């Protein structure tokens, strides 16, 4: 039977539950503040920007570039940094409350565009006339442009001159895959380690693999071609013969660079953003050789600035202005270690010998190819997943390269067909 005391307790419990419920309801909408009461067209107003650079804090040159644009345009830009691998997931879960500006890795742009999350230049009025075509094409789907690159980077073959000298390797002799393998043999025979790269089971692995893949003449639409087999066999044999360490299977590009900096490796495949580091340590760089000579086409990296759909379409104007401010000149790109997306900006960087955008890298980026090119669009993600799976399987010895590629092509066809 309920006593007076028991009834009080019951009322207390319900009151507590009610308070908790209210708090939960209030806090659920507080995640990403977008839009403000103030009228954007009269200046002022808060715009949210999501970028995948959590290691660039408020004191970094990148944050300063954003603040400079905010000051110039008279708005407040709220910056939110997340992990680059989570961008698609973060944008999807925020679908009804998207940020004003979202920076995404360039191969993801077609995926988000197809999901209807992004606006085209027709919707938002962005001016893309001065952007270099070869890096802009990653954001073009069915003839419509969904974003602009903040900058581009690409891959090169760094080498340690000290190690090469000890091993008696002349860098000028490294002109194709065979001569590179021969150089690795000499370096390992001299007691050093050969080459390090990233063959991890993520997009980074595919990114690092593409110069060798394209350099062998293979095409992303046909993963089990003989050219593709040649590229995968090159990597598999390096690991099998000890020219590349087992750790390439779990290395990210960052950890691979850490390995290279131990000074024991002869070569490292890595990106333009490490040029500054390389200069400080005395490492040099050449373009990745193709299978039969010449430079291999390397993939373009770098993020795109996109303007997601908003309920209040009058916000697009200012978002476009912010984007243009970040992209013009080279402040944004230099802060991130990328080559500027406009020809004028890139030329200025090359003239100033900016780290990551020296003349070498500017011309390397001009020769580079976006991954979603050849009208692959959203198919690229499916193909990329099969590529890095095949790499993992072949390099770890789970299957032979031929079996790995046959399985990969079959999986691509069943997923896309």
């Amino acid at each position: 039977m309920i006593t007076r005391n028991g009834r009080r307790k019951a009322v207390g419990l319900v009151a507590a539950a009610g308070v908790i419920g209210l708090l939960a309801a209030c806090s659920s909408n507080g995640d990403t503040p977008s839009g403000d009461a103030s009228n954007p067209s009269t200046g002022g107003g808060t715009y949210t920007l999501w970028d995948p650079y959590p290691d660039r804090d408020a004191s970094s040159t990148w944050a300063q570039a954003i603040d400079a644009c905010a000051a110039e345009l008279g708005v407040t830009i709220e910056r939110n940094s997340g992990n680059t691998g989570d961008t698609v997931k973060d944008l999807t879960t925020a679908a009804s409350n998207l940020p004003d500006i979202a920076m995404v890795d360039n191969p993801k742009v077609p995926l988000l565009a197809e999901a209807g999350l992004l606006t085209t230049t027709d919707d938002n009025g962005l001016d893309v006339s001065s952007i270099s075509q070869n890096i802009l094409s990653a954001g073009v789907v069915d003839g419509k442009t969904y974003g602009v690159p903040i900058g581009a980077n690409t891959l090169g073959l760094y080498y340690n001159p000290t190690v090469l000298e000890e091993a008696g390797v002349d860098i000028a002799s490294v002109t194709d895959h065979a001569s590179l393998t021969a150089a690795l043999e000499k370096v390992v025979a001299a007691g050093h380690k050969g080459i390090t790269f990233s063959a991890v089971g993520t997009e980074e692995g595919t990114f690092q693999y593409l110069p060798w893949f394209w350099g062998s003449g293979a095409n992303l639409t046909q993963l089990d071609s003989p050219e593709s087999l040649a590229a995968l066999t090159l990597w598999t044999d390096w690991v099998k013969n000890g020219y590349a360490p087992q750790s390439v299977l779990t290395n990210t590009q960052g950890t691979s660079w850490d390995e290279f900096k131990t000074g024991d490796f002869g070569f490292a495949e890595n990106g333009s953003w490490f040029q500054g580091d390389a200069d400080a340590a005395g490492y040099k760089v050449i373009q990745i050789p193709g299978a039969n000579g010449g430079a291999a086409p390397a993939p373009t990296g770098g993020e795109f600035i996109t303007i997601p759909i908003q309920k209040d379409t009058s916000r697009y104007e200012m978002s476009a202005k912010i984007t243009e401010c970040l992209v013009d000149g080279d402040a944004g790109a230099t802060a991130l270690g990328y080559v500027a997306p406009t020809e004028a900006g890139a030329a200025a960087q090359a003239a100033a010998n900016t780290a990551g955008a020296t003349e070498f890298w500017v011309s390397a980026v001009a020769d580079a190819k976006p991954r979603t090119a050849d009208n692959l669009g959203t198919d690229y993600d499916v193909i990329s997943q099969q590529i890095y799976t095949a790499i993992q399987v072949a390099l770890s010895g789970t299957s032979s390269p031929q079996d790995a590629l046959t399985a990969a092509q079959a999986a691509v066809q069943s997923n896309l067909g």
Partner: protein
Amino acid sequence: MTTSPIPVQRDTVLGDPTGEAAAHAAASPTTRRPASGRTEAAKAQLAAWLFLIPICVYLVAFYLWPLIRNIDLSLRDYTLGSFITGNAEFVGFDNYSKIFADPTFPTALWNTAVFVAMSLIFQYGIGLALAVFFHRKFPLSTTLRALFLVPWLLPLLVSASVWAWMMNSDSGVLNYFLESIGLDPVYWLTSPDWSLIAVIIANIWIGVPFNLVLLYSGLQAIPEDVYEAAAIDGAGRWQTFWRVTFPLLRPVSAITILLGLVYTLKVFDIIWIMSRGGPGTTSTTLAIWSYQLGFGGGNPQLSPAAAVGNVLIIIAFIFGMFYIRAQRKAAAA
């Protein structure tokens, strides 16, 4: 004497031999109520509901609703665009047939079974051994026991990262020791043969404290006189353990293993950080596969991921049913 509507609690152990206490309670002024019996009953019912509602709301919001959403996710075809437009085509059991036909499914199922079985056997075994060891109190035993809890207290990200570094094929400390005693290095996380074993080892290390704590408290609950009786009867150490301690620990063991099983079925962080389910699918469990389908690959396939998640829930549910059945049998016996 007025008939009191409040049932008087009689403490049967201490007893109420003369019925005096009962008479007092019945006659005390605080028990007098106006003679409206029905309102009292209604108020009692209302109070009962008020007690239940918060927990019901909680269960519905955090257990039932996500479960319903997950089932809905798996029965429809959700693409990224569905989150914008809200349209998702109903496809019935297509997602389930897709995942059952996928070559990864048998591998993931087998890996999950091996992972859970091996983890539980060793976690329980080592936990029990340690609990028995600490049962005999010796100087510094409390400190040592607290130190043994560290694996459980560390954030999983930290534990998994450190294990991944230790197991690095070229520069990890485990291979350093192996080489220093003349053995070949083991490619813990990059070899298809060893990747599952590597993550199992890390999981065992993390799970031992949980078993230790529960089994130790279970041991504490066994009365000393049972051991004395066994000693008088001339039972040796092993016999005492096997015939006295172990059977008395059965209820605690059962709950420990059930909790461990449900937890281990869902283990994701350790495997993902150490090997990402790789190389290939050699250390992919159902939980990893579900994440890979939904968020790990290039193209998010949320509906198949939800289907795999539901399969996992059903497996956990089946084991839960076994446990409840075993409990009922034990209670009836």
